[in-house]
């Protein structure tokens, strides 16, 4: 063994020193010649290989990078958005939204609702097929598929993360989940015959149809599910498809590819032949560069390099503002303070229960300055004066935020310097002797987010400058990202905190969930000074609205009143909506299904890949056109 090692080492050394192999040449010269030759050979080889490997993607395909890998294709259990994005494009539901946000039949041809609103009957389209990952037909889609899905989700042992959406509305489902009943036939989902599906609800739910687009109400082929058992959804061959796309390539942490489902019932509307995703952990950093080199068709432009792109005309021509979504952000004032004595919780509690104090904070918060930290160009488009966003729901031709007292609030920016100082004076008068000034305001923020960190500093400096350090002392406190909410909001460990909420269904009730009794946002039910005829308890207002299930216009009006009350009493300060930022995208805008909540916006059905990414002006034109068409379409529905 030692001989071969020596010989091996000898060869290396002969090469390096040139002692025996190339007599007369010094080491330096040998290395120079050899390395030059190697480099030349390498370059030639590289060029040959490069030109030989033709690009195998066509321009009509969509190519993107992603950094959040999906954890499973089992859409019956997963609550994560990246997983749901796949399900949205591979499995169809009973109903779907079109590009104007109008509910249309999808796998259900028609439906009817009983008079008491508790029974919904759906008639399915005939001839819809389940296919496997190669596109081969496996079975028909029948009503039993929804029953099997509901059974799987309602079985606690399967640990579905989206079970509560189903168990909260379907009769008997919660009992089945908790084990109180064991016969699934008692649960309110039945297949009357091959194409007739019947849902029985526990109570009248006006927005039930919108819930059907969510993962909890997707079908699954029971026989296939039983065959696969625990390996259902573990890769692309372990599920069946009935949607516009099926997954042909699944390589976790590497790439995935979806191709058009040739047996899809609505094939004419599926315009992108292939969706190619490449995984890259550094997608945020490399994305813009990859887009410039035409290797991908979509990149989000982070705000740190946005300025560079806006200053370069060639780059500026390729980006446009990204859509906002229905996530809502607001600043909550805590009525149930449970923080350390050094931040004076009792002092805060006394102050926050004073209306003038709350209104002074409400008027003093310069939301635009805060928003500039993350949206430097045109921050107004993300500023929101209500909790429920505009365009979420409408009834009787009127948008929700234009109803009743809410209309005035929706139009007015809460920031008002003069009003803030006026309320400050009044608060100081009313609270003199009861509260020590300056009032300490504990404001936690997530230290993992650069933008939030900066926003906290901006707000601290702004509030103290406007209201004076004799009045308030804002104390931003950093908390780490792991377990952030558990350490701050949920534990009552804050005085003023930026919170967010996303809707679960298409009804204004969803935006009252954080403030309802039993929730853990800011406990408005603990506010003192309410309960009289002029000053009703907020909780009562919500309950009155929830009770109204027949007349939608009346229901929405009652919710609007409750929300106007919440904001008017300055229990929260509405801030902004989610989404936004800028993107470079070749996807045709406003062609995808539009819905106020759920997975519809994740669908690629109806979209095409344009040759050139629209710039900001073209985007604005398309948006105006879409708004016009939408209004016309909505009018036709009513």
């Amino acid at each position, binding site marked *: 063994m030692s001989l071969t090692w020596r010989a091996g080492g000898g060869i290396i050394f002969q090469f390096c020193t040139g002692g025996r192999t190339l007599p007369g040449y010094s080491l330096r010269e040998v290395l120079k010649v050899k390395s030059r030759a190697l480099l030349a050979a390498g370059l030639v080889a590289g060029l040959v290989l490069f030109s030989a490997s033709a690009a195998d993607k066509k321009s009509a395909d969509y190519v993107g990078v992603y950094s959040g890998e999906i954890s499973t294709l089992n859409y019956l259990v997963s609550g994560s958005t990246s997983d749901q994005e796949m399900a949205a494009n591979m499995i169809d539901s009973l109903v779907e939204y079109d590009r104007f946000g109008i509910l249309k039949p999808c796998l259900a041809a028609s439906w009817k609702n009983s008079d008491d609103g508790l029974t919904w009957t759906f008639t399915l389209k005939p001839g819809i097929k389940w296919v496997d990952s190669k596109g081969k037909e496996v079975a028909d889609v029948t009503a039993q598929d929804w029953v099997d899905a509901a059974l799987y989700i309602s079985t606690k042992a399967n640990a579905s993360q989206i079970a509560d959406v189903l168990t909260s509305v379907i009769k008997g489902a919660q009992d089945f989940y908790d084990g109180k009943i064991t016969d699934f036939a008692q649960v309110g989902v039945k297949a009357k015959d091959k194409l007739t599906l019947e849902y029985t609800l526990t109570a009248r739910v006006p927005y039930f149809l919108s819930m059907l687009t969510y993962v909890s109400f997707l079908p699954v082929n029971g026989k296939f599910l039983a065959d696969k058992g625990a390996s259902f959804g573990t890769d692309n061959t372990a599920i069946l498809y009935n949607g516009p796309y099926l997954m042909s390539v699944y390589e976790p942490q590497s790439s995935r590819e979806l191709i058009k489902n040739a047996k899809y019932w609505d094939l004419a509307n599926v315009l992108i032949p292939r969706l190619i995703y490449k995984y890259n952990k550094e997608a945020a950093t490399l994305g813009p560069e990859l887009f410039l080199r035409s290797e991908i068709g979509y990149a989000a432009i982070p705000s740190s390099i946005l300025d560079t792109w806006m200053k370069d005309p060639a780059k500026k021509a390729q980006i446009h503002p990204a859509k906002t979504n229905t996530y809502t952000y607001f600043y909550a004032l805590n009525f149930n303070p449970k923080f350390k004595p050094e931040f004076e919780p009792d002092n805060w509690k006394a102050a926050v229960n004073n209306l003038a104090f709350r209104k002074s904070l409400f008027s003093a918060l310069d939301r635009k300055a805060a928003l500039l930290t993350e949206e430097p160009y045109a921050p107004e488009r993300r500023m929101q004066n209500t909790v429920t966003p505009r365009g979420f729901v409408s009834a009787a031709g009127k948008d929700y935020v234009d109803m009743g007292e809410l209309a005035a609030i929706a139009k007015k920016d809460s920031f008002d310097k003069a009003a803030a100082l006026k309320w400050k004076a009044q608060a100081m008068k009313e609270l003199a002797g009861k509260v020590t000034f300056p009032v300490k305001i504990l404001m936690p923020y997530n230290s993992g987010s650069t933008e939030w960190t900066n926003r906290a500093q901006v707000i601290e400096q702004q509030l103290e400058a406007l209201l004076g350090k004799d009045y308030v002392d804002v104390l931003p406190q950093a908390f780490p990202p792991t*377990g952030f909410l558990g350490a701050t909001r949920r534990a009552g460990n804050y005085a003023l905190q930026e919170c967010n909420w996303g809707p679960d269904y298409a009804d204004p009730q969803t935006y009252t969930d954080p403030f309802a009794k039993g929730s853990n946002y800011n406990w408005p039910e603990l506010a003192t000074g309410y309960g009289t005829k002029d000053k009703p308890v907020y909780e009562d207002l919500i309950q009155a609205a929830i009770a109204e299930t027949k007349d939608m216009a009346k229901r929405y009006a009652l919710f609007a009143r409750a929300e106007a009350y919440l904001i008017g009493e300055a229990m929260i300060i509405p801030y902004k909506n989610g989404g936004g930022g800028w993107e470079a995208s070749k996807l045709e805008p406003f062609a995808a299904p539009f819905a106020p909540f759920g997975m519809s916006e994740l669908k690629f059905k109806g979209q095409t890949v344009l040759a050139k990414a629209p710039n900001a002006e073209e985007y604005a034109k398309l948006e105006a056109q879409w708004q016009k068409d939408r209004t016309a379409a909505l009018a036709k529905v009513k």
Partner: protein
Amino acid sequence: MIKYAFKRLLQSLLTLFIVVSFVFLLMRLLPIEGYFGDRFQKMSPGEVEAGLQKMGLLDPWYAQLGKFYAGLAKGDLGVSFIYRRDVAVTKIIAPRIPYSMGFGLTAVAIAMISGLAMGVGMAKNKGLFPDKLGTLYIVFVHAVPLAVYLLFVQLYGSSLLGLPILFDKHRPVSWILPGISMSLNGIAFYAMWMRRYMVDELNKDYIKLARAKGLPNGAIMVKHVMRNAYVPLAQYLPAAILATIGGSIYIESLYSIPGMGGLLVDVIQRQDNSMVQALVLIFSSVGIIGLFLGDLLMALFDPRIKLVKSEGAR
């Protein structure tokens, strides 16, 4: 020899047991909400409980540990719950090892050959320009943070040479840049080590004697210097080769290589207990085996070393 190997094996098993159990217990201290991600906000307590039950986290810790070792005895590394739900851990890890090892071994080979050659060249031209150039390279590689110059090489290397930014297993031309990047650090290490070693050796008396006797330079290098250099190299080599299983986290995340590198960081962040335990087991075993093989090789090469009585701790 056999007795020594057997004793080492037992010791290693004990060490492994303690290491894995220790990490296991550490993992139990992680917060519960980390297991569920963003969805945790909207989940009901029943759903949370069902999820924890499925992950086996509601049993007392000794029961969990016992279950893990029972499975291990059967060769079952467990099932992932969060990273890829319901998929066996072995099925997740197995396809990734060839990528990491492929790149890693190539990088080690390039690094060793280029680095040793460079080190020799530097030592021969000590104080002259090639030496200074080499030192500059070594200093640069050590000084500038890895994260920075790797990204730099990726972005500018790919645009200058016209190579694709991301790794694509169907396009061999995309394998070049990651392979070279991975070896940059190694080249510097081997060059520096070799240079220092050679400088030390060439000053020794027995070399002077050999020169005085009239032995040509090349023969001195091969028969004396390199022969002695193998010993410390051999000790290090098995560990280096086995370490390639771990993959390079920076390179793999930059080039989208589906290897083992980012896997560990990912599964710890997502709190996938079974994956973390399996990976810790694998990496620790690899480390122990590497050390053991290194000692063996070292003893094979150097007749002066006897394994039985070793002063150093292993």
